[in-house]
């Protein structure tokens, strides 16, 4: 056996094949990005342990995630926010985590995306389970998982082939994702969900921004809209009573210990907005909720500079508009004494 020879040739072949793989995907327009994964969320969540009364935490789903730009917020308010929003999730378990597992008495800003906020309190339903799995991951984080995450960051930042989001995008390039693309859906008669392409870029600081392509390429944005339409068709009806009651329990507890709560309704547009107005309209959902809670509330429709914002894929703002939205809303909140401006202190 010429093991030494085989070993050296194997190293050479592996290097060549992996380089070719990397070059190929870069030539297809991919660029290295950080993976949006539980470990990244856990790193952000850990900041809450030492957070002060001045700190601000964002909870919610993808709208809060995309629409609030951390750097702009920091510039306007003087404090870097903690971004704990997770796409496709209900903020309710996250608020419970803040209330029950921390002593935080700063400001919690909750994004109210009606379809998710009022969706469910059933622990196994996806909007709840997904958020809870992040929380559980953080509380059960091992030293091995921590070190894996930190060791993987330089690779994620430099290699396209290391991208593997937990979202399982249709354009992911790991082997499992490539195999998933072979499914045609003809056998079980199920309507397959339309392809869901990655439309955001995240950084190590857990700041999410819409990709340039999603903001400018209408055909690409339409592909995302088809996904919202699909979700709207398969989602179970909302459970407004249970979700509201659940939220009020935690909100009351948080406010009682001196925390500040702010509710925000981020923009949506086009068919998604029409659908929301029809099935989860403002009067019966947003207005009914804000009347029950002692919190500052901000609906984008109430502000001239915000109500005209258009979401390229009907649900999230482009990076440029998100920066504008963040800046404007931060100023509105400061003026309203909802948050402090540490820049002036």
């Amino acid at each position, binding site marked *: *056996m*010429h*093991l*030494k*020879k*085989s*070993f*050296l*040739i*194997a*190293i050479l*072949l*592996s290097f060549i*094949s*992996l380089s070719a*793989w990397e070059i190929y995907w870069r030539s297809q327009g991919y660029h290295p990005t950080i993976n949006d*994964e539980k470990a990244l969320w856990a790193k952000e969540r850990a900041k809450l342990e030492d957070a002060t009364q001045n700190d601000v935490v964002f909870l919610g789903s993808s709208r809060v995630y995309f629409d609030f730009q951390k750097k702009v917020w920091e510039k306007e308010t003087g404090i870097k926010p903690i971004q704990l929003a997770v796409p496709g999730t209900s903020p309710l378990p996250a608020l419970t985590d803040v209330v029950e597992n921390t002593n935080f008495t700063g400001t919690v800003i909750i994004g109210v995306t009606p379809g998710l906020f009022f969706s469910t309190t059933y622990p196994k339903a996806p909007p709840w389970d997904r958020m809870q799995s992040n929380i559980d991951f953080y509380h059960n984080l*091992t*030293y*091995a*998982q921590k*070190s*894996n995450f930190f*060791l*993987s960051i330089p*690779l994620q930042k430099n290699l396209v*082939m*290391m*991208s*593997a989001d*937990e979202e399982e995008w249709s354009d992911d*390039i*790991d*082997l*499992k994702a490539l*195999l998933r693309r*072979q*499914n*045609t*859906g*003809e*056998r*079980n*008669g199920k309507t397959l969900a339309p392809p869901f392409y990655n439309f955001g870029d995240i950084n190590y600081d857990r700041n999410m921004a819409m990709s340039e392509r999603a903001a400018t390429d209408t055909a690409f944005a339409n592909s995302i809209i088809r996904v919202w339409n699909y979700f709207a068709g398969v989602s179970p009806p909302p459970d407004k009573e249970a979700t509201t009651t659940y939220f009020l329990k935690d909100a009351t507890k948080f406010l009682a210990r001196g925390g500040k709560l702010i509710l925000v309704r981020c923009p949506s547009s086009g068919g998604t907005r029409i659908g929301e107005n029809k099935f989860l309209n403002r009067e019966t959902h947003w207005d009914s909720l804000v009347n029950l809670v002692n919190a500052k509330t901000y609906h984008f429709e109430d502000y001239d500079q915000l109500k005209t914002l258009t979401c390229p894929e009907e649900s999230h703002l482009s990076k440029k508009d998100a920066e504008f939205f963040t800046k404007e809303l931060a100023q509105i909140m400061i003026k309203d004494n909802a948050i402090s401006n540490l820049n002036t202190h």
Partner: protein
Amino acid sequence: MLFNSLSFIVFLMIVLAAYYSEILNWNNKKRMLLLASYIFYGMWNPPLVILLWISTMIDWTAGKRLAVEENQRKRKLWLYLSMAVNLGFLGFFKYGDFLLENFTLMMQSMGVDYQARPMDIILPMGISFYTFQTMSYTIDMYHKKTERARNFLDFALYVTFFPQLVAGPIVRAKDLITQFYEPKKATVNQFIWGVFLLTLGLFQKVVLADTLLSNTADTVFKPGQVLNFWDAWSGTLAFSGQIFFDFAGYSTCAIGIALMLGIVLPDNFKYPYASLGFSDLWDRWHISLSSWLRDYLYIPLGGNRHGVTRMYVALMLTMLLGGLWHGAAWTFMVWGGLHGTYLILEKLQKKYIPFKITVWNGMFLALVTYTCVNITWVFFRAREFDTAWNMIKSMLFLNPEGTKLLESFDIIKVFVLIGILFCSHWFMRNTSVKEVASKISPYLLSIVWAIMFFLIAISQGSGEQFIYFQF
């Protein structure tokens, strides 16, 4: 720490650098390996290292006393102490909730309104493996089948040696401790072969088990479904492949890593899916556990020394407890019970309707054995009996209107992959990877090696835990 993780790669490089550095003498190298093994374990949950220490201390002390004690009563007491501590750990951490749950059910069935809160005990990783390993030392010492470990360091390293600590192979003292007595260093060829085995093990785990098979098995075994024939079989076959690649992958990695240090660990799998019957299967599947159960359970229960009936009882008890070793659930008992039944039926067949195995009927027999093994996997994988029964009925064409859950591609993928797995086990039955590798061209070996490495790299697993860690 998982073998399929970046932190393990860094950890291994540091360990190898220290191991092959000239600064440390052999004793210090062993101390370094011991420390590294505790770090390896503690990276998961540091406080649970204490259990390892207690198990080590008890069995070291018991072994020391058994080596000099001649009084049979006292010898027995030392043996019982070791077994009480190790089995006590297992009983509390692994079976505590299960026992409580069944006790509650029993009380309720007797009309007693008894409610107990689940204890929610954390299961220490690999506890079933290291307790069995340390117990084997003390039992062998009791029977004077092995020599006492020369010093505490060698014994502690035997209990804790990181390549096989959390999922085996379960190594006997005489096979491992003696290797620590003299300085060990891998030859260049041993080291490179160790790297190859590590690559092969990771390929089995990351690519074959996690990437190609796990999703299908997970989808099909979700509770509350009544499935179509093809879906049920695809899920079961996918799980049979997943568990083999997952566990054999771990063992292959462990053997490879140990070899890189110049330490030889025994084979744990020998192409089990081409077994000719069930005795053959248990000589090929998880060999270190099946031989442990044979030596420390089946034979003490009487083995074949007290007549046929007693032998069948011993066999069934061994397999039932073997099933329970895998997990605290009745489904695992059924899995063990089925294997016990198969073994008894095979013994009856050999006695009353013997036939000669030829090349022609051999493959058919292997296929029949594999099919029967798949039936047992249903109970092993399903979390509830309802799920298992529904699966079995679907596999027997009893649910013709069952749901078509999987895509055509999934079904084709599973059948092709499992077909290749079965054929490769058949052709490799009487040989080994090393023998095959020595016969093929070095260029072909390097191409296979590079393909495996490439597929591991692009699989990008999120570091799925090995299935056997939970046992």
